[in-house]
């Protein structure tokens, strides 16, 4: 379990991270969302023991990052947003070098396993410099995995990748979550994060504005359901009929046929409402909930201000 407690980072009079706290359990894939300069990388680097927090701390499985950074480093895999690989070595040599640094036993077997997991087995004897950007990204991820870390810190792992490489990386990260690892992914590509992250955090100016599973974060900005409704009968009659329902908070007609209603009831009440409207003779051709997504949440919560 990863516990981040009131993490602060200041440089002189400038505060980059202002008291971030959250908890993640094994198997969690946490999407860390924020504009450039919001404090994502600083937070990740503090957890990676690369930056010393000004205040607060974090612990992984009870091991404190400040008190036992060496022990923490054995339990984490960190992939920076920008990274370079040794260009004069082959793929297996690169992994072997880091595996030996981490004191991995049975290095050959481990290297074969991580290459298979990252789908780089066919490139085992290729030079690192000959790999495409997507493959280099996967190799960097393979390097993070050679010592079987409990926590993976992936800072913008999908940046600069083509759509296919992105899809492959997404699948790989989801697989790592299924393996029981805690994965923290920072990214700007919000729709992708919501596909495979089971919880997200939105950060701006060093403050964590929202944290939780995707559905609860979305609900936090939109406590009522927004339903788009279309009918080919009289919309005014429909509006008048809806006034009888206390769960209808608001009705906005967008044109002669379409309207948006804010509905505070449950899914069952929503189904009953539709049935009642049809029974009343309204000719409904559309009745869909307008689901908010992470992008809506992000745009609503943040102002675009950076540190």
């Amino acid at each position: 379990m990863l516990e981040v407690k009131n993490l602060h980072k200041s440089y002189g009079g400038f505060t980059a991270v202002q008291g971030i706290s959250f908890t993640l359990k094994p198997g969690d894939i946490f999407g860390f969302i924020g504009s450039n300069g919001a404090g994502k990388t600083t937070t990740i680097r503090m957890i990676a023991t690369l930056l010393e927090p000004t205040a607060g701390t974090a612990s992984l499985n009870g091991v404190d990052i400040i008190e036992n950074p060496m022990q923490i480093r054995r339990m984490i895999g960190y992939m920076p947003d920008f990274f370079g690989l040794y260009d004069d070595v082959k793929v297996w040599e690169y992994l072997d070098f880091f595996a030996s640094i981490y004191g991995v036993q049975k290095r050959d077997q481990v290297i074969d396993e991580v290459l298979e997991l990252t789908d780089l087995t066919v490139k085992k004897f290729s030079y690192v410099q000959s790999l495409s950007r997507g493959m280099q990204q996967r190799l960097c991820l393979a390097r993070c995995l050679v010592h079987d870390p409990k926590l993976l810190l992936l800072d913008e792992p999908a940046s600069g990748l083509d759509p296919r490489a992105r899809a492959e990386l997404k699948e790989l990260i989801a697989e790592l979550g299924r393996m029981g690892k805690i994965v923290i992914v920072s990214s700007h590509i919000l729709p992708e994060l919501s596909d495979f992250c089971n919880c997200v955090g939105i950060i701006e100016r060093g403050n964590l504005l929202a944290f939780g599973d995707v559905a609860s974060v979305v609900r936090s900005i939109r406590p009522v359901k927004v339903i788009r409704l279309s009918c080919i009968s009289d919309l005014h009659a429909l509006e008048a009929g809806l006034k009888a329902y206390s769960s209808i908070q608001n009705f906005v007609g967008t044109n002669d046929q379409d309207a948006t209603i804010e509905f505070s009831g449950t899914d069952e009440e929503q189904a009953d409402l539709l049935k009642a409207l049809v029974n009343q003779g309204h000719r409904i051709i559309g009745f869909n909930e307008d689901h908010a997504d992470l992008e809506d949440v992000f745009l609503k919560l943040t102002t675009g201000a950076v540190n």
Partner: protein
Amino acid sequence: MSTPQRSLWEQLVTKNPMMAEVTRFRKRFLSFRGSSVAINGGIGIVLVCYALFAMACVYYRGDLDPLLLILFFLVLMIFGVPLLLHAVIAGERERRSWDMLLVAPITHSQIVIGKFMGAMAAVLMAFGLYMVPVMVDIIFSPNIKVLSIVYACIVVIMQASSLTALTLLISSRVRRPIIALGVSLAVVLLYYAFLPALVSSMANVTGNMLTGFVHPYNVLERIRMDGVEVTYRPEGYSLYDVNTLTIVATHVIYQLVITVTLLGWAIKTLVFADNEVKFIPKSKANARSKKSA
């Protein structure tokens, strides 16, 4: 998960995970690697020169002064070491592979010592290869003193260690490899050319003791002249009044102190991850907060 207590020697040398650098340096500098034309071309030129040198040593066996040949390696080394090693740390920073080492469960000392040992292993292997044809010459040389050859090799190895430590220090203190190369060459020129000239100009005051113990050329020259009747001696206390073993031992201690000092400085230089977040100097930050207030 508990880490067993280890002695400093075990931490830095025998159990240092960064000793993997020894293999990496050997492969990097002493084998044809990848598709890099510059590296492979450079190794090719060195091999051709080595072949010519070996042929010359065999052809003129017994006629060449082996100590002069060892002195020649020293000259090659003072330019070769900065050329080959200037990017050892600065290059990692520039290519952004540095974070991956910093986040590994190793200390800054282990990183620097690992890189130092890797570089030294490569330099020593190069010296070993260089000495193969020289040995042919030595075998056929009349009146050669084996002890003098041993002393000369020790001087070269010690010089290699301080030179490697110096290059590592400069590489750790700058961000760009090209700057590291320029600074390293400038320091080497200063130490091996300008400084001896300056000290020699003061020989009337100091005798040749000052340069004699610290400068490898002087030490090698003293080893070469061991047992030879010297016709000219400078006035005052002369290096020729001291036996060779004392001079070599003093030189070894001097070089060891220099090496340890430079490595210690390099370890201190590896600051806690500096290449991502822009640090704002306190004075600027205060000025900014006053302005906003």
